[in-house]
């Protein structure tokens, strides 16, 4: 069982590492910790309390707190989608901004798929896409239904052209966790393995 203390220590340490602050209202903060604790005990990972989980790790990994979208949302709005993490200005002014959801609709839709069905692909196709916001290099991973019959995602190797960070997942993170390079700096690694000679 994860405790509130563990959750709060983790969030505080993470905010400190990245130069962020936690939401200035203590009651709100406590409620965030409660939500994260419930989700961690329910799913096995601290899923964003403000978003719907699919319950499958690979589908949910971009919204495990701190989510993939936190850094870019803080840079743009001064706070993450939930407004758990904020920048210094927001922390001091105590005026929380509105932060729209930037997670692509295709990923949101997966949380509604029945776990035993293969309906995922058609759900993704029916939705208005958010491709305008998706950099071209990551497009292929998003525009094609990535789910397979077993509900697995198609993972690929991606590397950050700026610092060389390599990650094996469906699509690259919004911002490189090492050097903070943008999404566009990621490129897929195509490995060719020759078994002859």
């Amino acid at each position, binding site marked *: 069982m994860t405790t509130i203390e563990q959750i709060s220590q983790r969030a505080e340490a993470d905010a400190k590492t990245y130069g962020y602050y936690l939401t200035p209202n203590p009651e*709100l903060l406590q*409620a*965030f910790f*409660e*939500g*994260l604790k*419930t*989700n961690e005990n329910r799913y096995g990972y601290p899923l964003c*309390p*403000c*978003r*719907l*989980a699919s319950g499958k790790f690979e589908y949910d990994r971009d919204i495990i707190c701190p989510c993939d979208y936190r850094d870019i949302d803080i840079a743009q709005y001064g706070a993450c989608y*939930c407004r758990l993490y904020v920048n210094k200005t927001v922390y001091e002014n105590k005026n929380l901004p*509105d932060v*729209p*959801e930037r997670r692509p*609709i295709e990923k*949101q*839709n997966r*949380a*509604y*798929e*029945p*776990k*035993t069905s293969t*309906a995922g692909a058609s*759900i993704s196709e029916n939705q208005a896409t958010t491709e305008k916001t998706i950099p071209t290099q990551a497009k292929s991973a998003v525009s094609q239904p990535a789910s397979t019959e077993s509900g697995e995602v198609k993972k690929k190797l991606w590397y950050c052209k700026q610092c060389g960070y390599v990650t094996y997942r469906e699509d690259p993170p919004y911002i490189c966790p090492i050097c903070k390079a943008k999404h566009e700096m990621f490129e897929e690694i195509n490995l060719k393995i020759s078994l002859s000679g």
Partner: protein
Amino acid sequence: MQFSKVTGKKVDHKVTLYALSTCVWCKMTKQFLTDKGVEYEFIDVDLLEDNDKEKIRQSILSKGAKLSYPTIIVDDKTIITGFKKDQLKEVLGV
């Protein structure tokens, strides 16, 4: 799939709230509506059975709303995404 009804004295609007049980802003919305005596119905989507989640997804999208929580729909036409106190006050007249 059952919406929970919270009774209140202000019944002049039909207020439907799509929420998550873990979501802080959903809790604030519920609290706000209750404090203002607004009658409303809500559903915690994260606690639903899998098959019902898809029905909820379709029902939210069919109203032109986003899959974002909380989503408040007033009189089947006004959509409020997120806990926006001023907008709620204006629409509900509280």
